[in-house]
């Protein structure tokens, strides 16, 4: 079997397993509550694995290694932040959120502040964050399939969008839980097994230094296939073969999609426009700005703030807490998630480091997101490399499918509940299964459309933007709502509008490429450092100004959020746990 055949077989296997487990879950799902929240009968181990499975997206499985390869040790703050975000969530949100009985942030906003208008505003933000997070998943699927089989980049995106939409519309959350728990373990295995062989191969090659004093070079004569038009810079002129004809490359160069360049052994690797070549030493040193990052200290802190505080605001993360039986279980599940995620994130940096040695041409084509998939074939010859690549493709598709499923369940759940007009006569009353299915189909189609329109986007950075929006909107709402009696509807609304508006504007300006460099570019590329404090400040100030509108029964709500289980309140109590 060829490498392409193996990769296709692996993708087919994951898709079939996903649908199979989904169908198994479907037979158990009967009511709307089954569809939406797995009837809250999911055990903590399943739940922690499912959270891990859902959370580890294309950005984690492929993107982190790519960023480490391009930008070095500073990129490790991405995975650190992805895990530390759960730590902050455990400290401030996990148990009270579960006790509130809220299924989504809009539910929480209504439980805490009782405003239908605020609820709809939150629902809009959920849909925006959900789409912002879905698009890179589908985009990554396209990249992965092209990297391993040569299929056009649209094929992978369509495949994942269709499988996920059908699965979610058919089985809802119940099936999603089992699918995702399975996919955590698949992803961990798929990343852990190849790394052992890669390290053995590296040892057998005499352990070349991972951080040499030079910038990356082609270790042997290398033929580079260019799939997309690319512009790159050549620092020292080099004689190459372009499509078989000899040519000398120097300075800025353009290559057309479809051309092949053969570099001689020992030539320095030219870097794609926008990525500065870095010596191994600078790549391995913190805050060196390797890869051309402006103001690395600011960029690091902005990223830390966005990921530490944004995790709690991701729609598909919050929903998972509702499937815990109570607040105590929610805390325990979160601790389990910390351990599962930590184990996973030990691995991607190894791929990033080895990638600079074995597949440096990705720095030329700018496709560092593919490093995880490209490494086995480059470092190991013969069927071993192809088998390991197939395993990695399986893991990557597990990542696309599980994260997209979770996002789709939540986004379309919120869409069906809060934003679609109600039409009970047509069987589309609020909470009906059919309404949820329609919303799922709509969301899936919208995400697919956006991902086909979007050009080449670095996976992890787009996901980072979704974190920034979540941190600037839902983080202040949740933290202040849970811990501060003084939060008012007006304050919360103003904070959401300011935080969401500022972060969305920053993202728009970055994607449009308005700022060229220096501080404006740094501030817009990583908006978290200023949009999160702004949202908090506006929310607090707005609430203090409208202090009189604090609900009279806020004490009851606080009791609902914080009272431990086992407290035997009278049956007549209005503090009921939903």
């Amino acid at each position: 079997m060829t490498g392409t055949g193996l990769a296709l077989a692996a993708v087919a296997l994951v898709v079939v397993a996903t649908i199979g487990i989904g169908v198994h879950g479907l037979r158990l799902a009967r009511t709307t509550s089954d569809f939406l929240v797995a009837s809250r009968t999911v055990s903590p181990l399943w739940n922690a694995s499912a959270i891990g499975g859902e959370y580890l997206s294309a950005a984690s499985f492929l993107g982190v290694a790519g960023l480490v390869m391009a930008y070095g040790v500073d990129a490790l703050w991405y995975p650190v932040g992805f895990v530390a975000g759960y730590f902050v969530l455990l400290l401030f949100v996990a148990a009270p959120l579960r006790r509130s009985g809220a299924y989504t942030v809009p539910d929480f906003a209504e439980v805490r502040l009782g405003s239908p208008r605020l609820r709809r505003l939150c629902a809009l933000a959920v849909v925006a964050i959900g789409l912002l997070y879905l698009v890179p998943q589908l985009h990554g699927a396209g990249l992965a399939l092209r990297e391993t089989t040569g299929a056009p980049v649209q094929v992978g995106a369509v495949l994942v969008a269709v499988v996920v939409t059908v699965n979610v519309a058919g089985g809802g959350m119940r099936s999603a839980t089992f699918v995702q728990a399975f996919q955590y373990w698949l992803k961990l295995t798929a990343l852990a097994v190849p790394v052992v062989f890669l390290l053995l191969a590296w040892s057998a090659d005499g352990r070349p230094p991972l951080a040499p004093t030079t910038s990356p070079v082609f270790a042997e004569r290398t033929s580079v296939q260019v799939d997309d038009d690319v512009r790159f810079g050549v620092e020292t002129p080099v004689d190459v073969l372009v499509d078989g004809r000899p040519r000398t490359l120097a300075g800025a160069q353009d290559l057309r999609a479809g051309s092949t360049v053969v570099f001689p052994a020992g030539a320095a690797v030219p870097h794609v426009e926008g990525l500065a070549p870095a010596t191994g030493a600078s790549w391995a040193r913190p805050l060196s700005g390797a890869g051309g990052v402006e103001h690395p200290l600011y960029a690091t802190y902005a990223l830390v703030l966005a990921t530490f505080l944004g995790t709690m605001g991701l729609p598909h993360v919050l929903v998972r807490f509702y499937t815990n039986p109570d607040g105590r279980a929610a805390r325990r599940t979160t601790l389990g998630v910390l351990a599962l995620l930590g184990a996973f994130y030990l691995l991607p940096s190894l791929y990033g480091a080895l990638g600079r040695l074995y597949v440096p041409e990705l720095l030329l084509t700018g496709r560092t997101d593919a490093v995880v998939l490209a490494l086995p074939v480059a470092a190991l010859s013969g069927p071993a490399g192809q088998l390991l690549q197939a395993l990695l493709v399986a893991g990557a598709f597990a990542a696309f499918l599980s994260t997209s499923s979770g996002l789709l369940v939540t986004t379309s759940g919120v869409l069906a509940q809060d934003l679609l007009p109600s039409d009970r006569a047509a069987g589309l009353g609020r909470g009906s299964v059919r309404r949820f299915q329609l919303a799922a189909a709509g969301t899936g189609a919208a995400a697919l459309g956006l991902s086909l329109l979007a050009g080449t986007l670095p996976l992890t950075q787009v996901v980072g933007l979704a974190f920034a929006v979540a941190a600037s909107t839902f983080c202040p709402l949740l933290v202040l709502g849970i811990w501060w009696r003084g939060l008012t509807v007006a304050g919360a609304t103003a904070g959401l509008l300011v935080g969401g508006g500022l972060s969305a504007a920053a993202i728009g300006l970055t994607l449009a490429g308005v700022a060229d460099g220096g501080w404006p570019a740094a501030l817009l590329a990583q908006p978290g450092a200023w949009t999160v404090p702004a949202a908090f400040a506006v929310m607090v100030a707005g609430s203090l100004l409208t202090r009189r509108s604090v609900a009279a029964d806020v004490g009851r709500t606080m009791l609902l959020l914080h009272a431990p289980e086992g407290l035997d309140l009278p049956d007549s109590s209005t503090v009921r746990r939903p």
Partner: protein
Amino acid sequence: MSRPAGEPPRRVAVTSPRTAAVRRPPGRAALRALDEQDRVGELLVRSLVRAQLLLALRLLTVLAVLLGGLPLLFAVVPATRDVVVAGLPVPWLVLGVLVYPALVVGGAVHLRLAERHERDFVELVERS
């Protein structure tokens, strides 16, 4: 959970944790105070919320100093960027490996202390 008027209640599986607890006749002073949220009841809840918030803020401070302080340390003392221990660069060791078990330990500490606060609260209420 309130919902806009005019909608049928959503079907949910009712798994109240209270059903497992031993039933006591309502009438205990602290329980009634909690339920009615009079001055005593409000004070009780405020004290619990404050204790849990202080715990969370303390652990957040530890996180901010230990982990959040790292970039600052690298910036202020450039020598720390190149420290090597047993052949491994320390920044990679810390950010790539050590940070994860440390977060799990921090989470376990929080779990323990938060549950202790809750047990104390239940005892206080039921004893009265």
